């Protein structure tokens, strides 16, 4: 082999460069890795075939991916998804294999046995690409995600009989019954060993390892579990990745699931990168160039046929749109197909050039897949016009979010009980085995993990959470968790228990909403506050106009969007009132949350309507204005959220207190004018709005001059706060003006 170091440097450098560029244009890193492989393979003349070390390293990327998928799949979860896995999966593989086999045999005159294997090979999709993207975008929990995941799991299981089929077709030494018997026995043995280890030993091993409190021993034990299980599966003739999947499922039933998952992610992503580079290495540009027309035509054909087949079979259980989205998500051919085709070539079942073309088609489809999956909403919107209110309203289920309760000691338990009484959805996060068991016994939703582990917190959807409560006994843990949460997103609200008032100043740098001593009364006050905030969010974010609309009447729907959009100004106005009345941040956050939910729903309807072909040019123009308004309103809400924090801080300083109060009054006056214009347009009001938002007289120059001068004696942080807040005020004024101009255009009957 070539000198490895320059190749590694070139590969890592190229992958980093490509991925930085791809991330900037919002494309998945998968493409960067595949391109890196293709370029490095050509430049250094490396090929993955025959290079066992590289093949094994690459395969372990998929093993780790399957392991992390297995972690999501306890045996009970798999049972709950039996329809998606065993029914949809079986039908998808069966139908696609039959169609592709028939086409290969009847149209391309491929020998029947080879055609059957080609059919099965093309029926498989890319677990690595699809699940990576679904996981990254959080779509794994949606109906499309469940359909895709179920089918992919069945496909991964189906790889075993497909490989067996190749052996049956080519092994003339043993009879079919012999082969089936030995495979069944191997399956029983492999599963038996893995399940026995999982049930009897794994929990004890991890308990002992967790007791050492050593991160590296913990990591070592995870690696041992994954690699060991894969080896056992491989030893009995199955793929490494199936072993990884089963190991994941075994850990899914233990309390260490989330911690393992959090620790594993860096390994998984790195190895997956290697896997995708190895996919790129298999691209032979000479074959691509010589057969470019065949590759493009056949590739497009395969994707189309597969999309159609999956769409048709899912139509029986899902809506048209979900069926189409699932079909587009799974329309590529996957990495296991490469393994199947490699065996077809090795066993000389087909002409080698034809197999090479097939492999290039597989890789090309894998390169295209991220583009298709990332644009699945747009593509399905173009192909199927439908009402989206169910989808839009689904999003409203995120109203108010959930509460993450870190710690389940005496205070944590009281808070949890109070949350239950108020029917507030919450998840307990603890790193204490005893607390975990107690929470389990009390039938709580509980996760075992470190409260300062960012991956664990992200997995608990901390960004969507209504609040995070740190009910931890050790104050050092409170500080560590506060730091981690602030790193994830400084805007996340933290409520923390502190041992005494003396520790309060140590947490000043973090975004704490409340700092409490740990008695029962404060728990009641706290839960009451969360509850009120939740009710407020639900009330404000309920649709008033877009609860019923139809794309058959776009004019009326546009009017409804206009009215619902005006309500966004009401929500902003109410958050102004919250600022004025010095309501707690959670009260104000409730309005920001309502705004986000409402604006997402309105944005969704606008996008859907934009893709409708039945709009007149005038209607397109109106919708375009509403879309622009939508962007300005979102920007307004974000700016206001930031300004709210600044004003709160300025209020604490006597030198800037009055300015903080006057800012709320001044901006509210402009907002009220804008609301008048939005509700019932009047040109005179608009002229006034133009006058006050035009910045003709130098913006807030005089205020800055006055407050930054020596006589005010503001300290550095006060000055920085003043600059930042006046910039936000300027920005808000400009946004008020721009939205007003949009209402003028709407009133002109655009």
């Amino acid at each position: 082999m070539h000198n490895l170091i320059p190749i590694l440097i070139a590969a890592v450098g190229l992958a980093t460069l490509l991925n930085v560029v791809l991330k900037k244009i919002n494309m998945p890193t998968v493409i960067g890795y595949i391109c890196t492989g293709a370029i490095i393979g050509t430049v250094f003349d490396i090929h993955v075939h025959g290079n066992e070390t590289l093949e094994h390293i690459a395969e372990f990327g998929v093993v780790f991916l399957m392991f992390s998928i297995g972690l999501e799949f306890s045996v009970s979860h798999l049972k709950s998804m039996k329809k998606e896995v065993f029914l949809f999966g079986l039908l998808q593989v069966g139908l696609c294999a039959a169609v592709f086999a028939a086409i290969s045999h009847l149209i391309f005159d491929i020998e029947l046995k080879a055609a059957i294997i080609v059919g099965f090979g093309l029926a498989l999709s890319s677990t690595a690409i699809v699940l990576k993207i679904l996981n990254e975008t959080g779509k794994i929990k949606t109906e499309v995600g469940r359909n895709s995941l179920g089918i992919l799991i069945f496909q991964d299981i189906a790889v075993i009989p497909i490989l067996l089929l190749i052996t049956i077709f080519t092994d003339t030494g043993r009879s079919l019954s012999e082969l089936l018997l030995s495979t069944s026995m191997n399956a029983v043995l492999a599963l038996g060993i893995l399940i026995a280890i999982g049930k009897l030993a794994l929990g004890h091993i991890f308990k002992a390892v967790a007791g050492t409190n050593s991160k590296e021993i913990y990591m070592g034990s995870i690696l041992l579990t994954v690699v060991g299980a894969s080896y056992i599966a491989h030893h009995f003739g199955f793929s490494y990745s199936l072993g990884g999947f089963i190991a994941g499922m075994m850990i899914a039933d233990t309390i260490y699931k989330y911690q393992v998952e959090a620790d594993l992610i860096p390994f998984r992503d790195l190895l997956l990168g290697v896997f995708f580079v190895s996919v790129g290495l298999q691209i032979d540009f000479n074959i691509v160039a010589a057969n470019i027309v065949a590759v493009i035509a056949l590739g497009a054909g395969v994707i189309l046929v597969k999309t159609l087949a999956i769409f048709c079979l899912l139509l029986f259980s899902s809506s048209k749109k979900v069926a189409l989205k699932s079909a587009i998500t799974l329309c590529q051919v996957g990495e296991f197909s490469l393994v199947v085709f490699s065996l077809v070539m090795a066993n000389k079942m087909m002409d080698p050039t034809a197999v090479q073309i097939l492999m290039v088609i597989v890789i090309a489809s894998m390169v295209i897949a991220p583009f298709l999956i990332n644009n699945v909403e747009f593509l399905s919107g173009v192909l199927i016009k439908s009402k989206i209110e169910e989808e839009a309203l689904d999003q409203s289920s995120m109203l108010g979010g959930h509460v993450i309760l870190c710690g389940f000691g005496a205070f944590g338990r009281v808070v949890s009980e109070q949350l239950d009484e108020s029917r507030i959805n919450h998840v307990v996060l603890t790193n204490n085995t005893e607390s975990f068991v107690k929470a389990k016994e009390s039938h709580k939703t509980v996760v075992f993990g470190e409260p300062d582990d960012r991956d664990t917190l992200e997995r608990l959807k901390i960004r969507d959470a209504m609040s995070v409560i740190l009910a931890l006994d050790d104050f050092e843990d409170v500080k560590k968790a506060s730091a981690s949460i602030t790193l994830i997103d400084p805007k996340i609200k933290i409520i923390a228990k502190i041992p005494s008032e003396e520790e309060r100043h140590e947490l000043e740098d973090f975004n704490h909403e409340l700092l409490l001593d740990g008695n029962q009364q404060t728990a009641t006050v706290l839960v009451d506050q969360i509850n009120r905030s939740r009710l407020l969010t639900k009330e404000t974010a309920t649709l008033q106009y877009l609860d019923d609309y139809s794309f058959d009447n776009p004019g009326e729907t546009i009017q409804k969007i206009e009215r619902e959009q005006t309500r966004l100004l009401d929500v902003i106005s109410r958050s102004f009132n919250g600022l004025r009345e010095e309501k707690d941040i959670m009260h104000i956050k409730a309005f920001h949350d309502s705004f986000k939910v409402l604006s997402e729903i309105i944005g969704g309807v606008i996008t859907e309507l934009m893709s409708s072909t039945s709009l007149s040019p005038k209607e397109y123009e109106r919708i375009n204005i509403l879309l622009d308004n939508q962007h300005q309103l979102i920007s307004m809400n974000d700016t206001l959220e930031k300004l709210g924090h600044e004003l709160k801080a300025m209020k604490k300083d006597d030198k800037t207190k009055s300015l903080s109060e006057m800012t709320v009054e001044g901006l509210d006056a402009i907002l009220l004018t804008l609301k008048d214009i939005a509700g019932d347009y009047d040109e005179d009001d608009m002229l006034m709005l133009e006058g006050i938002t035009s910045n003709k007289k130098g913006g807030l120059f005089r205020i800055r001059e006055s407050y930054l001068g020596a006589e005010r004696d503001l300290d550095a942080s006060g000055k920085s706060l003043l600059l930042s807040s006046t910039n936000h005020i300027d920005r808000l004024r400009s946004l008020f003006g721009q939205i007003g101009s949009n209402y003028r255009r709407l009133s002109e009957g655009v």
Partner: protein
Amino acid sequence: MLIENRGDVVILAPRHRVDTNNSPEVEKVVFENIGDGEGKMVIDFSQVDYISSAGLRVLLKTAKQMKKGGGKLGLCNLNDQIKEVLELSGFLGIIDCYDSVDSCLAAFR
């Protein structure tokens, strides 16, 4: 609220605060005195120490009416806090402010 007429100019002098509680009353008095907005009006803030968004709205409506009618509006004797809120809200871009009633009257001439 004190109301004074000097020639063709109406001078209004609200007191203490112009906020949600009394702005309807201030608005009523202002509009009784500006008619169709063709006249001249000075609002003297020498006795006002606070104005809320509701008060600012009254000023805006007044400015709008005066602009429509071709009249003149001037504010005077503003304390620092009120000057600040007028600057923050951008009202200084549409309403003229003066140091005293006399300077305002002089500007109207």
